[in-house]
C-alpha cells in the first residue's frame, strides 16, 4: 500500500472521528449539566430523536436550516421540561420517568414524521438541503490538523466550544457551582436558601435542548433526512460517555473522541474489507465505560444525590 493512500485513509479516519463525535459530545455535555443537578435523564435517545425530527420539520417547512436548529433545541427542551416537571416537581422516580419519556420521544418523533410525510404516499424520503461543512479561514490551511478540526460542520465547532463553556459554567460561575452542590447535597443547599427546583429545571431543560441539537446534527448536517433509526443508540452512548468521562467536561470530550475514533476505524476496516471482528471494536467502548466506572469508584465525580429526589424535611 503506498504512503499517500495510507495517509489519506488515516486522515479520513480522524476527520470522521470528529464528525461522529459531534452529536455524542453535544448530547453528553447537556446530560452532564442535567446530572450535575442530581437528575439522571435516561431519555436522551428519545430526546435526540425528537430534536432530529422537530429540527428537520422546521427546516423543511421554513427553508432555513438555522431555524431548524432552533426547532430542534425547542423540541428537545420541551421533552426536558416534561422530565423536569416529573422529577423536580412531582418527584417521580427518575429512572422510570426517563424511560417513559424516552419511549414517548422515540414514538412521538416517528409518529409525527409518518403523519406529516407519509400522507402523500411518496416513496422517496423527504429531504432538506443539508448544512455544508464550513472551513475556518486560515486555520483550515494547517496541514492535517486544519482538515481534521477546521473543515467541519458548524455544530461541530459549537460542540467543541461548548466543552470549555460547560467547564467554566459548572466550575467557575456561582450558578453552576450552586447547580453542582444541589447534585451533591440538596439539603445543605436548601438550608442556604439556594432554590433547588428552579435550578434543576434549568439544568434538565438545557440538557434536553442540547440533546435536541445533537439529534439535529444527524438530520440536518449528516443525512439531510429523517428516518426512524436515525439516532441508532447514540443517546445511550452519550449517556455512557458522561460516565466514562467521570462527570468532567474535558474527559467527556476525550470519551466522545474515543467512541468516534473506534466507530470511524471500524467503518474504515469494513470499507477496506479487512477481516477483523469489527463488532468487538464497537463493543469495546461500552466495556471500557464499565471498567472506568469500577476504576474511578474511589475518585468518582458522580453527583452524590443523583437519582435521589429531594423532599424538604424528609429523608
Amino acid at each position, binding site marked *: 500500500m503506498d504512503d499517500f493512500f495510507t495517509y489519506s485513509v488515516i486522515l479520513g479516519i480522524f476527520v470522521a472521528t470528529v464528525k461522529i463525535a459531534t452529536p455524542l459530545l453535544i448530547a453528553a455535555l447537556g446530560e452532564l449539566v442535567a446530572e450535575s443537578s442530581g437528575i*439522571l435523564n*435516561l431519555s436522551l435517545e428519545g430526546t435526540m430523536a425528537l430534536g432530529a425530527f422537530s429540527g428537520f420539520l422546521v427546516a423543511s417547512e421554513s427553508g432555513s436550516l438555522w431555524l431548524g436548529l432552533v426547532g430542534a433545541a425547542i423540541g428537545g427542551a420541551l421533552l426536558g421540561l*416534561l422530565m423536569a416537571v*416529573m422529577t423536580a*416537581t*412531582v*418527584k*417521580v*422516580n427518575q*429512572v*422510570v*420517568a426517563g*424511560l*417513559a*419519556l*424516552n*419511549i*414517548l*420521544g*422515540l*414514538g*412521538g*418523533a*416517528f*409518529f409525527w*414524521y*409518518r*403523519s406529516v410525510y*407519509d*400522507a402523500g404516499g411518496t416513496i422517496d424520503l423527504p429531504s432538506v438541503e443539508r448544512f455544508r461543512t464550513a472551513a475556518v479561514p486560515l486555520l483550515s490551511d494547517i496541514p492535517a490538523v486544519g482538515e481534521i478540526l477546521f473543515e467541519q460542520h458548524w455544530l461541530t465547532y459549537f460542540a467543541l466550544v461548548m466543552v470549555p463553556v460547560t467547564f467554566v459554567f459548572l466550575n467557575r460561575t456561582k450558578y453552576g457551582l450552586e447547580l453542582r452542590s444541589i447534585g451533591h447535597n440538596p439539603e445543605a443547599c436548601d438550608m442556604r436558601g439556594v432554590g433547588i*427546583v428552579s435550578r434543576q429545571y434549568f439544568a434538565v431543560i438545557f440538557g434536553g435542548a442540547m440533546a435536541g441539537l445533537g439529534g439535529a446534527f444527524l438530520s440536518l448536517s449528516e443525512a439531510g433526512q429523517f428516518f*426512524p433509526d436515525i439516532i441508532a*443508540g447514540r443517546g*445511550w*452512548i452519550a*449517556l*455512557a460517555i458522561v*460516565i466514562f468521562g467521570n462527570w468532567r467536561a474535558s474527559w467527556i470530550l476525550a470519551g466522545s473522541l474515543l467512541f468516534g475514533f473506534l466507530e470511524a476505524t471500524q467503518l474504515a476496516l469494513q470499507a477496506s474489507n479487512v477481516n477483523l*471482528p469489527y*463488532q*468487538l471494536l*464497537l*463493543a469495546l467502548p*461500552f*466495556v471500557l*465505560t*464499565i471498567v472506568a*466506572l*469500577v476504576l474511578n*469508584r474511589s475518585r468518582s465525580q*458522580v453527583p452524590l444525590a443523583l*437519582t435521589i429526589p429531594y*423532599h*424538604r*424535611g*424528609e*429523608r
Partner: protein
Amino acid sequence: MSERVDDTGGDERTDPADRNPLAMLFQGDGWRLERRLDTRPVHEMYATLAALVLTALIISLLVILVGVSPLDAFTSLYEGALGSREAGLETLVQATPLILTGLAAAVAFRSGVWNIGGEGQFFAGAIGTWWVYELLPGLPAPLLIIAMFVGAAVAGALWASAASVLLVRYGTNEILTTVMLNFVVLYILSWLLSGPWQSPKTPYFQTERMDEKTFLPRFIDDSRLHWGLLVALAAAVAVHLLTRRTGLGFELRAIGVNKRAAAYKGISVGRTVITVMAISGALAGIAGAGELLGLHHRLQLDIAEGLGFTGIIIALVARLHPAGVVVVAIAFGGLINGATNMQVGTGIPFALVQVIEGVALVFVLLAAVACRYRLKRTVRHG
C-alpha cells in the same frame, strides 16, 4: 438524618402544601391537598384507571389531530387486537415474551434493583439457547427443549450477574452497567452471526434454521400461538409464589423497602441482590428462548425489537404485581397487534403504540404520586 415528620398531624407549620409545589394548586378556600397515611390497593386501582382514561383522552386528541375519528381508530385497534379469533390468538403471541420480560423487570424493581438490561439478557438467553442446541444436537426433542430453556435461563442470569456482582463488589450503579451490557451482548451476537454461527447459505446475519424437533408445539394449527405462553404463565405463578409465599421472597421485598433495615434484620443484602438479578436475568433469558423456539427458529439480530424495554414499561404500569404484569402484557400485545391493523385501515402510524406506552406510563406514574394525597375540606382557623 432527621426522622420523618408526621405531616398529617395538627401542626399548622407542617402544612403539606409547603412540601409539594403541586399542592399549591389546590390551596383554594375550603380545600387543601394533604398526604394520605393509608394508601389502600383500591386507591391504586382507581388511580391507575384514571391514568388510563387520561391516556385514552390524550391519544384521542392526537388521533383527531392526524385527521381520523377516534372512534374509527379505536374500533380498528380493537378489531386488530381482539376482533376475531385469529386476532385474539395473535395478541397472545405478542404478549408471550412481554409477560416474561415484564416479570423480569418487576422482580428486580420490587427489590429496588434497577435492572434496565432486560433487552441484553433476552439476547443472552437466545445465545444460550443456540449454544445448547449446537452442543447437544443428539438429545431427544423434549429433553433438548428443556435443556435449551435451562441454557437460556443460565445465560440470562449470568449476563445479569455481571452487573450485580459489580454492584455488590464495587458499588457500581446497576442502571448504568446494565445499559452498557445491553450493547456489549448485542455486538457479541452480531459477531457470532457474522462468523462463527452464520449460516453459510446466506449473506445475512443469521444462523441456519433450527431442526423441526426443537419447535415448540402450537395449540392450534392455524395460529402461531405456541407453548411459550404456558411457560410465561407458569413463570408468573412462580414469581407470585416466590415473592409472596417464601422466605426468600420476603427478603427480596425487604431489601426493596429498606436496605438498611433489612441488613439489621440479618438479611445479607449483597447476596439477595445477586439472587434477584439472577432471577430477573433468567426470566428475560427464558423469553429469548421462547421467541427463538416458538417463533423465529433461527438466531437473528432483530428478535428482540425492544421487548426488554417494553417489559420495563409493562412492569411499571402493572405496579410490579405479577398478575398485573400478565394483564398489562396482554393489553400491550393487543396494542401492538391492533396498531398494525389500525395503520392499514386508517393510516394512523404504527408508532402510535410507543406514544401510547409512553403517555400511559407518564400518567400511571403521576397517578401513583397523586393517590398518596387527598383533597380535604379544611376548617378555616380565624
